[in-house]
């Protein structure tokens, strides 16, 4: 949720010139002004409105309304250009932005959800550097996407369990070559579920915890899950040493499947995970940090792009109505990254270990992923609930 807070705060902390004139209706318009706005239970600033010239403006907002009030500066098209997510009674905060010519209003959503609207804010002239607005999304609008994604994850878990059981049986009969092949299938199945990890609770670290941060690293007793199994399978361990790990993996999956119906996927997680999954891939997979011997981190990255595509597809109907250009750019960027990754997979299915990538390929993948992440990181701000805005 840190990103949401950052987004929300960033809007209100834009540096703006101070000490300019005060503008009220019929006053001579000028730029760089400060406008006092008083909120009460029955009003949201001046009912008569304001006249300003294009440029930077700071609203000095004071709330006398009970509880917390959210304040939105909204364009004539209905887009939120600046916001104070909540302002306590008796408190004041600046709401700063830059406005070009047009008609705007302030909308105050009181603590009891009543909406008060200011008089019109008329801005004359033009200026650049104005913010891109957010088309406001009601809180409940994302409910359908969360349900759909939750159902998708629930439907994937039995297949993941089957893959883990196959791995366990390989190890049980001492066929470590088959185990190494089936390990990858199972691990990639898990890596596609990236937006749900938070809802998996402690099961996630049991199933997919890396050794980083553990007191004795890879030698830490109790280190379990896919990476511990990878470390053992590719580290020359005998089957009898690997078996406890694969049995624990199956056991954790059984526990997760029993627990998942009572868990909740935080609706705020879905928009965040559209970029956080690939952020992790960039940090741990494309660098090879998460390679415990199999050299399969490009395959993992590709599975992460598939997981991202699943979330993006789930959120697509919302994004199509709220920010179609962002959706299109994200889909294009994802396709480019996937094509770049697939180019490093041999016809026999073998993926190039990242350590063997040429500098040119590595730079191209990093660049494609970075550019895509910039696009995806806009999504949490777009899909922040703004009821009443």
């Amino acid at each position, binding site marked *: *949720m*840190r990103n*949401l*807070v950052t987004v*929300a*705060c960033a809007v209100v902390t834009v540096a703006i010139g101070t000490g300019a004139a005060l503008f009220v209706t019929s006053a001579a318009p000028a730029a760089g002004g400060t406008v006092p706005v008083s909120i009460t*239970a029955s009003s949201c600033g001046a009912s008569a409105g304001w006249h300003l010239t294009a440029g930077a403006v700071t609203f000095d907002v004071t709330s006398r*309304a*009970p*509880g*917390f009030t959210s304040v939105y500066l909204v364009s004539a098209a209905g887009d939120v250009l600046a916001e104070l*997510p*909540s*302002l*306590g*009674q*008796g*408190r004041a*905060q600046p709401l700063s932005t830059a406005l070009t010519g047009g008609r705007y209003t302030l909308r105050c*959503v*009181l*603590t*009891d*959800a*009543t909406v008060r609207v200011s008089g019109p804010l008329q801005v004359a002239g033009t200026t650049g550097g104005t913010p891109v607005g957010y088309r406001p999304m009601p*809180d*409940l609008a994302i409910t359908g996407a969360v349900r759909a994604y939750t159902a998708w994850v629930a439907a994937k878990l039995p297949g993941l369990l089957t893959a883990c059981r196959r791995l366990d049986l390989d190890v049980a009969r001492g066929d470590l070559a088959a185990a190494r092949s089936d390990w990858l299938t199972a691990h990639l199945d898990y890596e596609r579920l990236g937006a749900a990890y938070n809802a998996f*609770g*402690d099961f996630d670290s049991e199933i997919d915890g890396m050794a980083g941060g553990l007191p004795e690293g890879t030698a830490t007793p109790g280190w379990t899950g896919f990476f511990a199994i990878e470390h053992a399978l590719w580290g020359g361990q005998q089957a009898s040493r690997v078996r406890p790990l694969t049995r624990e993996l199956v056991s954790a999956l059984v526990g997760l499947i*029993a*627990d998942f*119906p*009572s*868990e*909740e996927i*935080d*609706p*705020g*997680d879905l928009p965040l995970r559209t970029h956080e999954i690939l952020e992790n891939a960039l940090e741990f997979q494309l660098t090879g940090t998460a390679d415990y011997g199999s050299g399969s981190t490009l395959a993992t990255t590709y599975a992460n792009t598939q997981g991202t595509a699943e979330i993006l597809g789930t959120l697509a109907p919302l994004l199509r109505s709220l920010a179609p250009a962002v959706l299109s750019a994200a889909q294009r960027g994802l396709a480019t990254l996937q094509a770049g990754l697939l180019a490093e997979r041999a016809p026999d299915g073998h993926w190039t270990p990242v350590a063997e990538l040429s500098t040119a390929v590595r730079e191209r993948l990093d660049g494609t992923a970075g550019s895509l992440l910039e696009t995806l990181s806009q999504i949490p701000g777009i899909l922040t*609930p703004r*009821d*009443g805005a």
Partner: protein
Amino acid sequence: MRLSSRIGMAVTVAAAAAVAVGTLVATGTHTHATESHVRLTASTLPVPSHIVIVMEENHSYSDIIGNTSQAPYMNQLASQGALMTDSYAITHPSEPNYMALFAGDTFGLSSDACPVSEGTTANLGSELLAAGYTFAGYSEGLPSTGYTGCTKGEYARKHSPWINFSNIPTADSLPFSAFPTNYASLPTLSFVIPNLDDDMHDGTIAEADTWLENNMSAYATWAQSNNSLLIVTWDEDDYTEGNQIPTIIVGQDVAVGQYSELINHYNILATIEAMYGLTAVGSSSGASVISDIWSS
């Protein structure tokens, strides 16, 4: 955590006086009962014969209040009692909020861990029992009285916090099917935990609204003439920093209206403890008592 973020940005709110505001649900005026046989404490709190607390899940104030198409009964209830317009959960996710309301502490929980065991730590149920009152938790779908498993079908232990304390007899953890039809036989205080389909966790708002009306409306009516209370509240909102939740208190000696003082689960707990003269547990100690919603 996210509540802290919000408060950090918004700066601390000054607790509002009990002013009824808004136009969405009620008229904002207080009505005063003309006669009452309710015993009042020195601070004019009622001492209800019975309190039933129904816990709903994961929706914000504005998801419910004013949403008369999906939650007609809940909005109707809000107009029959005290609607707390500035009520907040403590944290995310679910379980620490249930623990906060029941025992005044989140116990360091940042997940819906199961099982949680807090032994003999004092809680609302144990304090009631120690003072000679009675307590029960009614959980829809609980497989059997005293069941301690984490989940079974649409039942989830994380929503039934009394199971986490050894000082609550297992006999007090009952399936909702044991909820009496003779309301006078209810314990002094009970929780009702609809299952995951009926508390708007997995099911829809409309399904939860229908369940509440079908299962609790008769009690809500009864409570208003039998010195009793129905409290309907939510564990948390769905994910925001704000974490503002609906809290509705209906019953005899509740002055109908909207109330904008800042409250959270600890204030609800502190109010109930004050009603029965219990020792305040955890963070409910020092939390202000809701004293302005009562007609007297």
